[in-house]
């Protein structure tokens, strides 16, 4: 297989360029195996992120033939003989295949992704949660922050102010959690200009997600929540803020 890999050395290069490597692949290899082969046998200067090789850590997200992909999950046998590997789109390139993720890390923090309580938590016992209550948000807990969704989102590419798919899906995960009481607190952030209303429902985030999370669905549901809250407050319904 021929791997065309984007290279960028901030100390030498003005712009990224492509380097080709010929890799003798095994049939059961994933793209990450081929990149590891290059690093171990051909070119030790190649920089990229990876850790678990089992779709858990979320570090090896890259563009594979133009598609945001988790390279440990993308198998050689499903690809043509020539494959182009680039760092995730919509992010600045730190070096070679490593991108700068500072912006999304701040955004993940901004949406307050933790259980917020107004009442005191139960004393000397666990929170009770039914299977049905768990089913409401469980798929959103599967996100591994690989950032493929940000790379697929043209809205984030055009304006980095947009909070973006993974962070919004994470916020929705806590909004739907029966133990959480922070929905209205988060709504001020989520319903702001750079929140859910910046999403124009391209839906690419959900299509590329390697863990079958559906951030596009989360965002549309939050738009409905936001609109309902707005009208509840406008019309003076009691409980306008939950």
């Amino acid at each position, binding site marked *: 297989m021929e791997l065309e890999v984007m290279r960028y050395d901030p100390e030498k290069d003005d712009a990224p360029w492509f380097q080709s490597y010929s890799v003798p692949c095994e049939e059961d290899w994933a793209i990450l195996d081929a990149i590891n082969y290059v690093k171990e046998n051909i070119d030790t200067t190649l920089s990229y992120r990876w850790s678990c090789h089992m779709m858990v850590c979320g570090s090896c997200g890259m563009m594979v033939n133009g598609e945001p992909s988790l390279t440990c999950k993308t198998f050689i046998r499903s690809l043509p003989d020539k494959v182009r590997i680039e760092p995730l789109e919509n992010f600045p*390139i730190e070096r070679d295949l490593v991108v700068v993720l500072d912006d999304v890390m701040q955004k993940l923090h901004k949406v307050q992704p933790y259980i917020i309580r107004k009442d005191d938590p139960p004393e000397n016992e666990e929170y009770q949660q039914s299977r*049905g209550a768990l089913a*409401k948000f469980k798929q959103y807990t599967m996100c591994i922050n690989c950032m493929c969704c940000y790379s697929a989102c043209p809205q984030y590419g055009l304006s980095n102010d947009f909070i973006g798919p993974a962070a919004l899906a994470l916020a929705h995960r806590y909004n739907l959690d029966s133990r959480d009481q922070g929905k209205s607190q988060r709504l001020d952030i989520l319903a702001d200009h750079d929140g859910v209303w910046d999403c124009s429902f391209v839906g690419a985030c959900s299509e590329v997600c390697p863990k079958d999370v559906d951030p596009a669905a989360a965002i549309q549901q939050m738009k409905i929540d936001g609109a309902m809250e707005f009208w509840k407050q406008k019309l003076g319904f009691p409980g306008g803020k939950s």
Partner: protein
Amino acid sequence: MSRQPYVRPLSKTTWYMRNGRYKRYMLREVTCILVAIYCFISIVGLAALADSPERWAEFLAEFTGPGWVVFHALSLVFYLFFMTFDWFKLAPKAMPLQLGDQKLPDQFIVIGHYVAWIVVTLAIFWLTGVI
């Protein structure tokens, strides 16, 4: 070692040409222009109807030309593929339903939309004397 992150340029006018997914999205969004034109035509038609039978006949005659027939056919295709089919397919994302512990399968919501669509269409046909 110095940090000099490289930001790849993204064209604000041609970004959607990068892949088929974005192109389909743009076709869906462009359909709103056809909707706007159609709304305008409907308002003009209503005004003609309110004015006089002669104006209404003129209005109808105007829209039988080949140019308008092509416009209507094109609008119908765009409405069906990029509004009706696409939005019905996306409806379960915005309005998921859960019965007890289980999420209702998406197909039920999609099929519900098609059934409602057919019922409303038949009701309009019946009210307007087509059937």
